[in-house]
């Protein structure tokens, strides 16, 4: 499990006291900490203590579809930018855990294109061409 302290961008922005960025990274921090409430709260605590960030008073904002949890998460994420309340942030953590935390992904694999191989092919190709040219000259 990651520690919030591993989230370098968060630490950097807290240090810079960039509240706007802190607000954004705190949302990404949910992904970074994979919805770990304990670490997330620790991160919040850290941010509150070490920057000018503060939660706003909660306002109810419209959400079009609460059934689709991912969509709900997405909408509340946008709402959070409008009203950064603790309730909404906590709700976002809950929604993450409902929608994403246990989501299983298929990791496709694809061999990486090796640049050295290409270089080798090119070098061999050039060498062959030169050899053919030399042979041609000799036979000539």
């Amino acid at each position, binding site marked *: 499990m990651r520690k919030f302290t591993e989230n370098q961008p968060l630490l950097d922005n807290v240090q810079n006291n960039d509240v706007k960025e802190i607000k954004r990274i705190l949302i990404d921090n949910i992904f970074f900490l994979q919805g770990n409430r304990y670490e997330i709260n620790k991160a919040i605590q850290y941010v509150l203590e070490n920057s000018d960030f503060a939660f706003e008073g909660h306002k109810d904002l419209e959400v079009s579809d609460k059934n689709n949890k991912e969509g709900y998460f997405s909408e509340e994420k946008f709402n959070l930018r409008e009203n950064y309340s603790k309730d909404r942030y906590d709700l976002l953590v809950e929604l993450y855990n409902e929608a994403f935390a246990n989501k299983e992904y298929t990791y496709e694999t*694809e061999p990486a294109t090796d640049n050295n191989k290409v270089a080798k092919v090119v070098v061999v190709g050039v060498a062959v061409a030169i050899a053919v040219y030399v042979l041609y000259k000799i036979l000539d």
Partner: protein
Amino acid sequence: MKVTIRYNTVSFECNDSENQSDYLEQIIKDNQGKRITDWFKAFIEKVKEVTNNEPFTVEIIGCDWYEVGYIKELFTEENDVEIKFKEDIDNNEIQTRYKAIDDFLQYAEKSKNDIVKNALQPNVENIKNHRSTKIEVPVIATMSSGKSTLLNALIGQDFLHEDTGATTATTCDIIVNNNLKQFVARAIDIEATETNQNISEFLKDWNSKANENINEEKKYPRLRLEIEGPIPNLNTSNFNLNFIDTPGPNSSQHSHHKEKTFNYLKDNQNLPIVLYVLDPEKMDSNDDDSTLNEISKVFSENNQNIDRVVFVYNKVDREDIEEKSIVDILNKVKGFLEKKGIKNAKIFPVSAQYAKFAQIENNLTNKKKSDLRNYRDNFIHNIDDNYKGYQLLDYAPITSSQKNILKEHIKKSILDADLVYSGLAALKMYIEDYIINHHKKNQYKELRKSADNISVQIEATIQLEKVRLEEITEDQKKEKEENQRKEIEELKVKKEEAFEDIYKIKVDKKFIEKSSKEVDNKFDNLKNKILQRKELSKDETIPLIKNANATIENLQISIKTDLISVMNNKLNEYLEKFKEITNDKFTLDTNNIEIAAFNAEMGNNINAIDINHLHKYQEKKEETKIREVESRWWIKKLISWTVTEEYKVTKTIINTNELYKDAIEPLSKKFTEVLEDYKQNFIEMFVDVRDSFANRIEIEFENIKNNVYKDYTSSLSIDKKNKEKELRKLDNLSNDISKFKIN
């Protein structure tokens, strides 16, 4: 002492002059509108009173030749009275003034201008009356005073019956018409009967009929007799002269005759010259009292020319002048008239019989021829016998110059001499003179008065109209200013309301988020997928990176296509909404409101993750792995005993923390920033559209306001033009009027 009178011979008005005596000034004022010849003699008496009979000079400015002659004659024998005449008006000048009056009245009658028409209207009757060319000369007489003889003498015929016992039963008009060769007589009742033969008998016959009664009612109640023909030696100056043989006011049978007679005397419109035939023998009776009282009233009360009532002492031939002089005889008549209150009466001593006989000498019987010879013997002076004759011309109330003219007539022919000696020529001359110098003069005095009234009325109306026009335009201007002010106030309120309405509309940004929700979700899943693992193999990472790049690409495409379109639609919707809510206030053409192009290039700022840079996040990781190997021991090998052994493997991994920090997090940041930029950009575009719309309202407001001002100015300009046009018309009218020198 010197008294100056500035007199207008056409209007009979006397202007103020610098006289020393207020009393005399007042007398002059009191005689305004009367001809100077009517009041000058009495005026001189008043001057004498004021000067205590000290010598004085009276200067009169502006008399015509007749007035000059008349006044001079009045004072030829008075040495202490010096009368000076200045700036006499000659006949041409008078004719010019008459023409100006005629021209002005004709102009007024022809004019279609309402101001002129209205000014003319009250004067129409007066003008008509004084334009009349008909002059009636009623001849009034006490019974049997020789009226018919006088009329016969005047017309030079013997048509009217002179029987002393008979009475004139009905009016007989004698129309002077020198275009006819001989007389015609008409009896007009319901039908007219006419003859040119034996007129005397015709008239006698119808006169008798006029007296006939049927059951105590007149048989011919409307009967009127008329004779028309030429009267030699009577210059009527183109007037239609009618002698009216009236039945006489004393006729008990014809009470309406009195009314008719009195009407002639009081007729201030036509001012007929009235010949009153006196019979001195009957002066002691009271027969004429009522008529003479009426004449007295006319003399004392009426401002009109009293010269029009002329007394004719007809049977002067009965007087024996060797026993009683003509002066005594005339003084007796004057005394009689003065007793009746008639002063300064003009009395013509005439022998009508003598005059008539002279004119019809060829048709006279021997007896009458003998009578005519006797008349001549009596009336004409005889130097041999030292007989002066009647010398009636000397006593006739005409001017010396007129008398001199008549004296010349004596030399012309026997008939002319007879007419002069009989006194008739003087009477005729007086009538002729009256027509020209009194009747026509009075007519033009009245016509000038009407013309002056019309002119004054027109000028007054013009001034009133000008004031009214000024007032109208001022009022209209004020009203228009007030309307304009109200209109602009209302317009301002509308504008403020429209602004309030459009600024109430809040921009909805959610649609941007909704539009990017799908991309956002994909990005979230990508983040989640990467961060679910602490490390990824390189082979696993490549598809993830590709996926991330595809997501970014999708976002860019989405911006370039869907979002821009949605944004533009949204802005158009807002524009329509602005129009809708302000439609009741302003009708705006918003077609050319430009919606700024959305900055789609912003999305291009998100750089794709370069797969070739993955090595930055690669780490070499050594793993200890366990594998089964054959035991080195032969026994174990024999039984295929396998044992495990640990071995070290070094593999390349992608550190997701690093990948997140260096690639995914900046991407996430950029993604958020781009969305925020979109929102901000949309808000700016919305504000632009709203401000453009507000600006359009402002422009429309200014346009309408300018139109209101323009309408106001244009309307004022029209008012001004109309006013100027009306004023020009009024000025033209005023100029037209001033061209006529009626004063």
